[in-house]
């Protein structure tokens, strides 16, 4: 059984979803790569920001 941490699961999810979003939502290879990176950073960044917000709410 594969049991990743929550953050590892976020990274894997963001990687796979960003590849699909990049390829399907843009036309040229260069723009695909840029949009894929943008989506990946937004996925991971928003997860980190939301985690800190929840951390401070819980205290």
């Amino acid at each position, binding site marked *: *059984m*594969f*049991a*990743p941490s*929550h953050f590892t*699961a976020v990274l*894997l*999810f963001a*990687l*796979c*979803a960003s*590849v*699909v*979003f990049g*390829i*399907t939502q843009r*036309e040229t290879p260069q723009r695909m790569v840029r949009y894929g990176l943008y989506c990946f950073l937004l996925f991971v960044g928003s997860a980190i920001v939301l985690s800190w917000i929840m951390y401070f709410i819980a205290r």
Partner: protein
Amino acid sequence: MAASPNNTPGAAKTAPQGFVYLPLIVGWLVPGAGHFLVRKPGRGALLALSILSMFVLGLAMQGKVYSSAHDILDILGLVGDLGSGLLYIVSRVLGLGADSVQITTADYGTRFIVIAGLLNVIAAVDAHNLRTGRKPA
């Protein structure tokens, strides 16, 4: 006699020929195969790798593969799972995936499987758009 727009030489080059829904159906059944049909093997391979990885990771995390729907959330999960096409059918036939979620990791896995199906639908629609010319190749 008035000539129809499709009879002009320019229109004949751009009008899609054959069954335009083939990449959509094949892309839904097999992740990435729609892009191979429209001669985009690089994109198809990357899409197949991403979607397959997500589905397999979901199964490896002992995620639940929806088999029946008892409430609205189950229906949404089942619809998402059905987006995986043959992956869903094969996993159901082989009895892969957990029947119920017991641990936190399995809950992640269930989401991975559902999202893999939804991403596969996006990829299949993209192959269809490439086929019809709605999206520039």
